[in-house]
């Protein structure tokens, strides 16, 4: 068989595994096999390219030593990073790897512009190269900022002016792109490259900057689909079917996933991007109504209350993950179950930092899968739940989402814990949640606060339970 056929065959296999892999990833039973299948397909496509790819003049792939060296470093570093990252830091990690893909796409365009004379190339071809550059760069700089924000290294910047600056930047990018592609004589190629590179980097930074913490998963998903599109432009550039299918598939699937995530939070995509969680001042002001009292509860009382309840619901949030309390929480819940208490975990779709993040964290602690109940199934049962224990969750149990139209999270579906008989909140302090808004639940007559580090408190609670 000629090498061209082998190459195309490897691409066909790659494309098919991507489609099947993605399909299998969307159901719990087959997800893991789907991921491995796509990985295998990727491997085949890469090997096929290295050994069988030829350029238009029939030259095979050269500089093999350097390619292998780069791949070796990338594999070792990528593997170690992925294995060592804590499950709580998963969203940042995904964002980081996404940024690397974006940078890769952008560099391809830069090298392509650098190494060949494009004075005779068609505007169509140039458009593809520059679009790959722009989208790849935006994805890279945006992902880096998203990474920094999730890692709490970068603070939000909320300003209405940013919205206009961003629109202006976007207009500039397209303006320069238009001139470069359709009137190449008016601007030097170097000038165009640097201008587009600079503007796109800035746009990526400023586009992610004002977006509130709670909306970050949506942004990562969006940037993910951007990188997919950048990869697809690479596919156009090289007439490469596997890059095209892989890129477009992720581009469209990523966009749909972004929309689905928005729906889970009852927000529109436009709302997330433009009307970012702004007006921090007014949001914070909403909570301070008169002198509201906080009721505290002791460890012993909590333990007794839980031990003699017939139904307990645990609402885990990111705070549980930060305190690394998922294992001890499982212990606490096991103890209650042994006493005959009916226990479940009420999982909000965006609990943690990403949809499904909490499930991953609890699964890590060996919590049986059937005990995790989704919000829609929990809410109707709350009125006959005796005790709700909130461990490090805040925004997802905020009644303001239901009854305060001025609240930035108004309209987001929440777990209606206040309908239960008693609510116990495990919390370190009275600090506001990730979205930076007050939570009137803490002042609710049914609510009792149990201050302290989640892990510490739960450990002591388990001790108390054993004494009863």
């Amino acid at each position: 068989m000629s090498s061209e056929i082998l190459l195309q065959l490897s691409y066909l296999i790659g494309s098919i595994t991507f489609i099947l892999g993605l399909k299998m990833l969307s159901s719990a039973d087959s997800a893991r096999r789907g991921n491995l299948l796509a990985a295998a397909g990727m491997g085949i496509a890469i090997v096929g390219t290295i050994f069988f790819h030829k350029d238009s003049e029939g030259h095979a792939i050269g500089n093999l030593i350097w390619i292998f060296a780069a791949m070796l470093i990338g594999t070792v570093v990528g593997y170690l990073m992925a294995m060592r990252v804590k499950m709580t830091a998963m969203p940042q990690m995904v964002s980081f790897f996404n940024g690397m893909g974006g940078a890769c796409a952008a560099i391809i365009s830069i090298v392509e512009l650098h190494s060949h004379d494009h004075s005779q190339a068609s505007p169509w071809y140039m458009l593809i190269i520059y679009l790959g550059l722009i989208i790849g760069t935006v994805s890279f700089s945006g992902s880096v900022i998203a990474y920094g924000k999730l890692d709490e290294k970068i603070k939000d910047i909320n300003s209405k002016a940013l919205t206009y600056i961003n629109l202006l930047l976007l207009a500039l990018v397209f303006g320069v792109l238009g001139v470069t592609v359709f009137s190449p004589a008016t601007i030097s190629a170097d000038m165009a490259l640097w201008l587009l590179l600079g503007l796109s980097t800035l746009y990526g930074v400023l586009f992610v900057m004002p977006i509130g913490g709670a909306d970050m998963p949506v942004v990562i998903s969006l940037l993910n689909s951007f990188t997919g599109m950048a990869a697809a432009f690479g596919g156009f550039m090289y007439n490469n079917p596997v890059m095209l299918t892989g890129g477009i598939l992720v581009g469209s699937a990523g966009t749909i996933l972004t929309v689905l995530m928005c729906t889970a939070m009852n927000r529109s995509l436009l709302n997330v991007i433009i009307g970012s969680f702004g007006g921090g001042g007014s949001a914070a002001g909403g909570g301070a109504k008169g002198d509201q009292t906080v009721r505290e509860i002791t460890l012993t009382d909590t333990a007794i209350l839980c031990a003699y309840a017939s139904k307990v619901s645990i609402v885990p949030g990111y705070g549980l993950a930060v305190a690394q309390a998922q294992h001890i929480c499982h212990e606490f819940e096991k103890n209650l179950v042994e006493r005959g208490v009916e226990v479940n975990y009420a999982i909000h779709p965006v609990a943690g930092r990403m949809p499904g993040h909490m499930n991953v964290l609890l699964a890590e602690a060996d919590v049986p899968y059937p005990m995790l109940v989704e919000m829609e199934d929990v809410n109707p049962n709350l009125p006959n739940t005796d005790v709700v224990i909130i461990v490090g969750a805040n925004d997802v149990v905020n009644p303001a989402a239901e009854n305060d139209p001025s609240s930035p999270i108004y309209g987001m579906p929440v777990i209606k814990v206040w309908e239960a008989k008693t609510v116990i909140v495990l919390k370190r302090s009275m600090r506001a949640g990730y979205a930076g808004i007050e939570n009137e639940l803490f002042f609710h007559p049914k609510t009792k606060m149990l201050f302290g580090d989640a892990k510490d408190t739960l450990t002591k609670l388990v001790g108390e339970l054993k004494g009863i």
Partner: protein
Amino acid sequence: MEFSPNTLELLYIVILSVLLGIEVISNVPAILHTPLMSGANAIHGVVIIGAIIVMGHAKSDDYVALTLGFLAVLLGTLNVVGGFVVTNRMLEMFKKKK
């Protein structure tokens, strides 16, 4: 590449892939959003193939292209390997239901 019948052929792939992407993702339970995003993240690492092509056809005295190409292959590999490994780690935990 000119805008040619061949380009239109590629457009078929684009349109079919778009529809396929939408079809494949619909009806995903929220629980799987994170692993799915992570898996998709690994798949767009296919951009590494472009990096290999760029690097593989760079002239041996063109140091700018060689350096950038090296960097592109490295970053692309990070995306692919890191992406798949992280996704696998996440899914491993779902599997542990005894």
